[in-house]
């Protein structure tokens, strides 16, 4: 199976939600700011639990935040 890239819209969604800071998002989803930075730069693929928590904060489905790119 070819390696898939996971794209995400976290940075866009943060700005759409009152310019939420990375720290504020990190605190709401229970991770460090460093993880949010790496997620936004698509250098880290989150666990399903973290992806669900991020989607919940933005009121989106997981597919609305993350996208699988073959």
């Amino acid at each position, binding site marked *: 199976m070819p390696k898939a890239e996971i794209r995400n819209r976290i940075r866009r969604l943060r700005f759409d939600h009152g310019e939420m800071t990375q720290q504020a998002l990190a605190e709401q989803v*229970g*991770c*460090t700011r*460093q*993880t949010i*930075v*790496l997620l936004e730069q698509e*250098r*880290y693929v989150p666990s399903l639990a*973290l992806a669900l928590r991020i989607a919940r904060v933005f009121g989106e489905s997981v597919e609305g935040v993350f996208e699988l790119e073959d």
Partner: protein
Amino acid sequence: MSQILYVAGDSDMRSAALKVVLWGIAALTAGLAATALGVRALRVKSPPLDEPLPATPMQRLSRIGLLAGAVLSAGLVALVLYFGPEGTMEDDTVRIGFTLLLLAILGLFGLLSLRLSIWMRRGDVVDERDRAILSGSHALRSVAMLVTLAVWLIGLMESYQAEGAVPVYWLYFVFWSVLVVSMLAFPLGILFGYRRS
């Protein structure tokens, strides 16, 4: 006759002790080499990030641990090199100093572990990525400790096989060197784990 035998035995023991010192150095070197190889395996060349990464609490704790561990370990190595293995154990003052340094390392290790275990219960301080890095570092430390122990035991076996007995103070040095390797390998594994993004 018994005096001659005793002198010959003593000389054999001294020659064996010298061999063990070399094996001890080899054990420490092997443990640190295993750490270096592990750290090299953890390194991944990737393009620079768009923005600088803020240090996580676990990174800061590891830097403190590495610095303090290196200073204390250097103190132990300096003591043993200056007084020699037998001198370190036979002189009460040196032995107490050596033991206090060992206790300081153990105390530091305990404090850092306690801090980390408190943080582990809080998701906003130590998250899933930190846990993955921590797990990799535990594996690296275990391999480094195992390599150190293996080289030490081969050395003791090769040096004292003819005598059939090992002076008890070597056990102390075996423990000490495994502890030093552990104290250095663990934070190094964490710090290089963060660089693997």
